[in-house]
């Protein structure tokens, strides 16, 4: 029974084929990688008092190195040894399954001396599956058993599909990147704090330094003590003119602001790393399991063996607290601490989903994707926190940046997340307004509290506020204390008023643009889903949808957002007179027009037409719809059949 025959009335219930939709793991991985490198680029570009670009280079190298060294890491952590001759039949079965699913190279089976369950470890070219000795023995014993054989296959297929889906590379890289970035940044933070504090201490003495006096002083002391002396190399000393220039520069530099600059920028990246771990990383780990499970169900056409295997695994984990084994990012010492933590708290950090969650995802694969409001809240928190960490270390950001950043991220992520709703035929009629409102809620709350603090400062301590804004401007403006001009209290007042008006004005504008873009994209997606006779739809239709999202994002970024920004933001008003501005707006118009024309042409040709009998199909698409004339299933590739009954 294959996926193209779901019309059999007595067959198992068809499910949504999640592999036909944009992969959640890819989206989440890209979210993490883009944010980290985006932040690192933004702190290392331009002039700054502290060169932070080496940190970017170090993190880039260390993350790739971490990915390549993953087997080394796991071999040490789980004490892995090659599975001997005893387990040769198991390795042979892995070989056969790999041939079945066309996976090369074949992962090697290892025995873990410090893990009880089964897991994968791999870099770009070296792939391993490792299991605890008892677990591997259980698999070996049941390899010939008539019923339990399928359970062993299910387990092995699950692990093999982690490689098939590229989890070892994609998620492995994200893991290495998160590790490298938060460690290096925490270190850089402490290190820079120490060094710049030293500069603060010595800056004053350095101002009065005279090389000639220094040499004389040191020589005098040497002579006085008669200890084995040093000859000061004369090339160490700088020319008088250079020295004076240097001393002037030092006099102009406020090292406290340099320190503030270094702290905010390194701490920012560190916090971004923590936010990403808390928000996305665990979700990513769970979702990759659901995908691997789904693939096993697609192959075995039933979820029964897999669920039995997971159930027995969970039981054994409940007995011996080894659920902690899945806490892969902890060292042994850290894990020993975790073992003291009460179990319910422990569960929060466990990356392996619980049995009942796996079961629910297999019965309703669409639940792997968040529902509309949940998705909106997730993306809203993600966007707002990043905006706060990146732009708002300063409060000076009244330019177009938050506008562009929030609108584009929200639009792309929400549109991708909603595809599954359209495939299911859910009418997202007014939901796009709710979704947009929820997305903007965290941002609005954050912005509101920031502005409140500003106003409290303005009313009760205007002088302190001016100082504070001064520092904030210095930090963002990347002058960090070099050639600083103080901000007067009156300027601070007008700044607060301007920032309040412009930032608050942005909220309804953002709401309008996001809601409109999501609504428009929903219409496009739903319409594209009715292109039943589109050639090679199983490969090309999702690409059309993702390309339309990309096109819309491009039109927003090049045309709509600059235009809106230059109308509502005074700082952007001058853009109106630049040819580059109009070239980009014109380009956006051309892109949008070309995309629209192509869409209309394809739509007239393929929309609402049955591929089998070529008669019109009037309705919008919903998963499982059939042609009213010939009863042929429309978009059979969006569905997959497997048995979910008989379990439990």
């Amino acid at each position, binding site marked *: 029974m294959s996926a193209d025959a779901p019309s059999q009335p007595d067959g198992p219930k068809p499910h949504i084929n999640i592999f036909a939709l944009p992969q959640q793991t890819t989206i989440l991985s890209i979210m993490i990688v883009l944010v980290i490198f985006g932040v690192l680029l933004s702190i290392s570009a331009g002039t700054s*008092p*502290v*060169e932070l670009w*080496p940190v970017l280079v*170090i993190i880039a190298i*260390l993350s790739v*190195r971490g990915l*390549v*060294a993953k*087997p*080394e*890491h796991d*071999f*040490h952590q789980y*004490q*892995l*040894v*090659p599975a001997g001759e005893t387990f040769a039949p198991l390795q042979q079965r892995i070989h056969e399954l790999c041939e079945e699913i066309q996976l090369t*190279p074949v992962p*090697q089976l290892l025995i873990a*001396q410090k893990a009880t369950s089964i897991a994968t470890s791999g*870099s*770009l*070219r*070296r792939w*391993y599956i490792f299991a605890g000795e008892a677990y591997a023995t259980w698999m070996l014993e049941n390899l010939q058993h008539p019923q339990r054989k399928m359970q062993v296959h299910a387990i092995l297929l699950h692990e093999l599909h982690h490689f098939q889906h590229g989890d070892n590379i994609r998620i492995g890289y994200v893991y290495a990147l998160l590790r490298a970035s938060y460690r*290096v940044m925490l*270190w*850089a933070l402490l*290190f*820079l704090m*120490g*060094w710049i504090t*030293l*500069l603060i*201490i*010595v800056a004053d*003495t*350095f101002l009065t*330094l005279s*090389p000639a006096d*220094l040499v004389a*002083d040191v020589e005098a*002391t*040497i002579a*006085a*003590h008669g*200890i084995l*002396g*040093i000859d000061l190399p004369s090339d*160490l*000393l*700088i020319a008088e003119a250079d*020295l004076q220039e*240097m001393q002037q*520069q*030092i006099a102009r*530099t406020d090292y406290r602001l340099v320190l503030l600059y270094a702290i905010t920028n390194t701490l920012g990246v560190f916090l971004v790393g923590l936010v990403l771990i808390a928000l996305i990383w665990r979700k990513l780990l769970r979702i990759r399991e659901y995908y691997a499970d789904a693939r096993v169900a697609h192959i075995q056409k039933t979820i029964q063996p897999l669920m039995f295997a997971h159930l027995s695994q969970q039981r054994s984990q409940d007995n011996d607290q080894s659920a902690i084994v899945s806490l892969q990012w902890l*060292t*042994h010492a850290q894990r020993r601490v975790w073992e003291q933590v009460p179990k319910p708290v422990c569960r929060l950090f466990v990356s392996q989903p619980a049995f009942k969650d796996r079961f629910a995802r297999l019965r309703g694969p669409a639940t792997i994707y968040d529902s509309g409001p949940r998705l909106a809240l997730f993306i809203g928190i993600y966007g707002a926190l990043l905006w706060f960490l990146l732009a708002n270390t300063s409060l000076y950001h009244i330019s177009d940046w938050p506008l562009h950043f929030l609108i584009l991220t929200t639009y792309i992520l929400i549109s991708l997340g909603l595809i599954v709703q359209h495939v299911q035929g859910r009418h997202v009629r007014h939901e796009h307004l709710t979704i947009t409102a929820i997305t903007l809620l965290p941002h609005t709350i954050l912005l509101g509290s920031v502005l409140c603090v500003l106003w409290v400062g303005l009313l009760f301590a205007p002088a302190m506020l001016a100082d504070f804004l001064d520092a904030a401007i210095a930090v963002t403006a990347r002058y960090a204390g070099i050639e600083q001009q103080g901000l007067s209290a009156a300027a601070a007042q007008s700044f607060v008023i301007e920032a309040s008006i412009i930032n608050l004005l942005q909220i309804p504008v953002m709401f309008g643009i996001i809601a409109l873009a999501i609504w428009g994209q929903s219409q496009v997606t739903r319409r594209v889903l009715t292109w039943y006779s589109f050639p090679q739809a199983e490969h090309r239709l999702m690409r059309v949808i993702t390309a339309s999202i990309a096109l819309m994002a491009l039109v927003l970024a090049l045309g709509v957002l600059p235009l809106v920004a230059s109308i509502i933001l005074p700082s952007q008003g001058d853009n109106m007179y630049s040819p580059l501005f109009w070239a980009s707006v014109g380009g956006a118009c051309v892109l949008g027009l070309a995309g629209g024309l192509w869409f209309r042409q394809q739509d007239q040709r393929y929309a609402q037409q049955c591929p089998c009998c070529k008669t019109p199909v009037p309705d919008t698409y919903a998963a499982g719809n059939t042609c009213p004339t010939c009863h042929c299933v429309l978009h059979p590739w969006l569905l997959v059949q497997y048995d979910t009954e008989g379990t439990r």
Partner: protein
Amino acid sequence: MSPRIIRPMRWLCWVIVVLNTILAFVLANRSVTSADLWWIIVLALWLLVSSMGVGGLLPILYWRYTTDWRAWLILLAVLVGSGMVVYQIIDVPSSEPAQIIALLYPASFCMVGTAIIVLSMRRDVGLLIGAVFSVVTIWLLVMIWLRYGNVFELFLQAMQPGAHNPWLGWLLSLYLQACCAVPFALIGFVGWTIRIIRREIHRQMPLTPH
């Protein structure tokens, strides 16, 4: 080593660390005449030797990394670093004994710090930290030099007799330690990385634990 000895030895090491810290602080804040120089030197030697011993013993007592060549490499770097500190004390003459202490106390401190690095050394992590530490030290030094001028002069200036500043000595010695660890850490780190990349290309399995 039997477990019965290990526990008291660990305690002894930590007691020495605490005692050295207190000793260094007390001495650094006392005004001593040059006539007392001899016992200052005795105490300085005690600080140096004991902290070196503690720095080397602690990781072994806790993790028994004795067979790991990288642990020895780091210890070697520590020894060379301490040597540099001693050299610095002899070479930069000063009538302020507090400055000698200020230079020696960080030696013991660094020893413990490096010991912690070794302690956290799961395979290459210790070296990794060492390498990053060293690279950034050099980079920062160059950066400060280019932007703000000659760093060594800043130090020399601050170390002049009269310009008494123990904190500066503390930071200076920290910096020296880091600099000394550079070649060792880098050699180890690069060598280790090359080995991993070679394994990756030839699809070789990592060494299995014994």
